[in-house]
């Protein structure tokens, strides 16, 4: 009797076919394999047939596929035409939720969406290079000057050179990676940069909408006025009848001049300083309100518009009584003579 197969070979074949059928129910699989066991035994015992097992039966993968088709079973999940590769272990797969998610994943719309996203990859390559350089620049601190090309190591030119280099590297890496399996490292780098890009985007939104105040007290101030909302950088006085006042000198309860902080950052990106009125002796009077913020000569076009006074909710106040206290201007050491409030 010619033996065309050893038991070990038959065992191996059986195992391989079993693996190909592992997505079927235990009962189904058992039945099909049972047939194969019998068949392998018959084949090995056949005196007329000396063909090697693999030649006679074909590869285990092929055998299993042919078996399934003839038996009216669907082809092995994962070998279907769909690009979706969501393979889940058997017990989990039974769970309806997982099954539906898996179907959704393989749905042509999801796959079409992925195909579209794939077309946008070159754009992502450029964006990630930008983000990477910005992250590098962020080590040295970021401010408004860093848009759109960040300063790296103090130099914008260097930042630009680095940016160009990064874009080239990123695009080349992206092109080389197309079609091949991405390494975990690349995937991780992408994820980090993606997250950084999102953070950067949000930060830019905030930057655009907020007005930054930086309280930088001048050397002559011991304190700066604060409100619950942050430093006070200007005071807009109005007369009772709603007329805006200028050149108003303010003092606190102890006779000290009221000073505010100086606003440094403006929403329009302009650089401004306070133009303090000068007293007769030439000394700037820093407690005259409202402050006149004027653009620095170097800023040019940006600062065409000077900051306007804010809209204020002026209350309707009754006209003052003909007693004219309020009309008396305080001048010099008038404090001593300030009349006590007349009884009414």
């Amino acid at each position, binding site marked *: 009797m010619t033996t065309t197969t050893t038991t070990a070979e038959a065992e191996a074949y059986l195992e391989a076919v079993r693996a190909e059928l592992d997505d079927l129910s235990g009962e189904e699989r058992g039945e099909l394999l049972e047939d194969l066991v019998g068949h392998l035994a018959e*084949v090995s015992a056949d005196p007329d047939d000396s063909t090697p097992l693999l030649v006679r039966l074909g590869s285990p993968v092929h055998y299993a596929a042919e078996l399934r088709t*003839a038996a009216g079973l669907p082809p092995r999940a994962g070998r279907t035409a769909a690009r979706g590769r969501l393979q889940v272990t058997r017990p989990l797969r039974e769970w309806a939720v997982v099954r539906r998610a898996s179907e959704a994943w393989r749905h042509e719309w999801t796959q079409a969406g992925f195909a579209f996203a794939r077309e946008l990859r070159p754009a992502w390559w450029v964006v990630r290079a930008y983000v990477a350089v910005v992250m590098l620049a962020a080590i040295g601190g970021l401010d408004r000057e860093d848009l759109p090309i960040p300063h790296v190591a103090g130099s914008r030119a260097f930042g630009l050179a680095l940016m160009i280099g990064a874009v080239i590297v990123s695009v080349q890496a992206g092109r080389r990676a197309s079609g091949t399996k991405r390494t975990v490292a690349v995937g991780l780098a992408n994820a980090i940069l993606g997250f950084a890009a999102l953070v950067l985007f949000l930060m830019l939104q905030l930057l655009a909408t907020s007005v930054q105040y930086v309280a930088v007290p001048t050397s002559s101030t011991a304190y700066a006025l604060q409100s619950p909302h942050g430093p006070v950088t200007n005071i807009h006085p109005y007369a009772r009848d709603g007329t805006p006042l200028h050149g108003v000198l303010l003092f606190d309860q102890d006779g000290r001049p009221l000073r505010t902080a100086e606003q440094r950052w403006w929403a329009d990106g302009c650089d401004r300083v306070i133009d303090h009125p000068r007293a007769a002796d030439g000394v700037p009077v820093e407690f005259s309100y409202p402050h006149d913020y004027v653009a620095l000569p170097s800023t040019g076009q940006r600062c065409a518009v000077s900051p306007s006074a804010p809209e204020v909710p002026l209350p309707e106040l009754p006209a003052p009584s003909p007693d004219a206290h309020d009309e008396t201007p305080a001048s010099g050491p008038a404090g001593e003579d300030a009349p006590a409030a007349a009884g009414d």
Partner: protein
Amino acid sequence: MDASQLLKGVLDVAVLAVLEHEDGYGYDIVRRLRLVGLDEVGDASVYGTLRRLYKQGSLTSYLVPSEEGPHRKYYAINDVGRSQLEESTKTWQAFADAIDRVLDLNREAA
């Protein structure tokens, strides 16, 4: 024309016909089909077809104890299978005749 492609369509008929003649087990049925001249038929296809026909209800099966090895699973055709065979034979015959006619037309014209 690839014979194996043709065979896939009629394997059910072939298997039923073989069993109509005499009960058989997997390996035996493969052998009989090959003897008739159907070398292209794959072992897996036969076993799969047997399972499917059985599930459809066209065949019955029984085990026969064997001394040399595992018990052999024999298949037998039943009435459902017989009527399916009859139907399919008619369809096949009509189809084969039509193809023959088309081929004849060509031959006559040539």
